């Protein structure tokens, strides 16, 4: 039986990063009165993100980090002052916090939400994509119409190769929630992603 997941999106002009809040529906009884939730890539923790979390009575239990770049993790220190959340990332240390280290192929259930971990190096060595039911949280590996930036040709080739192998092989048409810019779908990226089409 598929878990119904609610997704909230928060955008910050500092770092231009998309941050996501995930919660399971119907609510679990893990945290009476408040809904256990996952935050993905808190690039900044500002008043509007706090309002989004508190206004919806979320209790942030976990933070997932797609990769350890400042635009995606800068909000961690403030978030950790407010919420007792565990951090999950490929890197063992993020913003001075020890993490639960993830590897490709890992499958977890966090805040009642099943998710799997896909490693897509290229933009950075530690880049992860989180697959949650029919959603892919892609960080800076792929966004609407483009793939992530890379340091050189070798890294770009690695990134596109891994995307073809591990993301474009996923059946169906999951939603894509990237680290920056507009949302997309996997079918749209198959058809219109300029970097993929030109590769």
């Amino acid at each position, binding site marked *: 039986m598929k878990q119904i997941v609610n997704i909230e999106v928060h*955008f910050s002009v500092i770092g231009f990063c998309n941050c996501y809040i995930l919660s399971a529906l119907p609510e679990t009884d893990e945290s009476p009165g408040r809904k256990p939730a996952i935050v993905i890539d808190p690039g900044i923790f500002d008043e509007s993100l706090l309002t989004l979390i508190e206004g919806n009575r979320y209790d942030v239990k976990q933070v997932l980090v797609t990769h350890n770049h400042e635009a995606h993790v800068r909000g961690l220190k403030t978030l950790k002052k407010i919420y007792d959340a565990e951090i999950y990332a490929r890197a063992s240390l993020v913003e001075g916090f020890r993490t639960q280290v993830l590897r490709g192929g890992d499958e977890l259930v966090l805040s009642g939400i099943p998710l799997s971990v896909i490693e897509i190096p290229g933009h950075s060595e530690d880049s992860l994509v989180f697959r949650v039911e029919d959603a892919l949280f892609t960080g800076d590996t792929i966004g609407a119409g483009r793939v992530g930036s890379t340091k050189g040709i070798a890294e770009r080739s690695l990134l596109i190769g891994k995307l073809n192998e591990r993301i474009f092989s996923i059946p169906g048409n999951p939603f894509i929630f990237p680290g920056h810019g*507009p949302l997309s779908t996997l079918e749209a990226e198959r058809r219109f992603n300029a970097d993929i089409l030109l590769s």
Partner: protein
Amino acid sequence: MILFPHCTQEGCESFAVYGRNTCLLHTTDQHAYKDEGSLLLEGQRKAENMNLPGLKLSHSSLAEREFIGVRFSGMDAEKISFRDCKFRLCFFENSRFTSCDLKGTSMQYCVFAGSSLTDCDFSSTDILHGNFNGTLIAKCSFQNSDLYFSHFINAVMEDVSFVDCNLRKVNFANSSRTGVNFKYSNFEEAYFNPESVS
């Protein structure tokens, strides 16, 4: 938005349409579903978390409605007024909009990829983080709009007005543009070259 439940047909990975246990393909009463969907939209001021693919709408007004997390994929809309509507996290990919009025709408994180937009008025809109990749856009006006961080990658545009628009972080890479007017817009803050895609 929510991630919609799947079709109950064995082996089918598609999303079940609103009010049914099956996807559009496996819905036996497609006409009834589409009629119900159209009536539903017309009768509500606010629609949230609905999967309503394949609707055919014509000659009606949905002005001043609010839509959050609604999937309209494959919609065929002709002469529909969406004037002053609010859309957030809505998916219109592979849709067809003909002679529609979207003036004054507010859109955040909406996806139009692969759609065709003909003779539509998007003037005075706020389209933030819009995905127009691979769209065919003809005889449309985005005049006086904020298109912050929207993408038109691989779009084909003919006779489109982007006059007096905010184009900050807008990406037009690999797009084809004939008769496209950027007058009074900050096009220097947009991306046009293929190499700027990544």
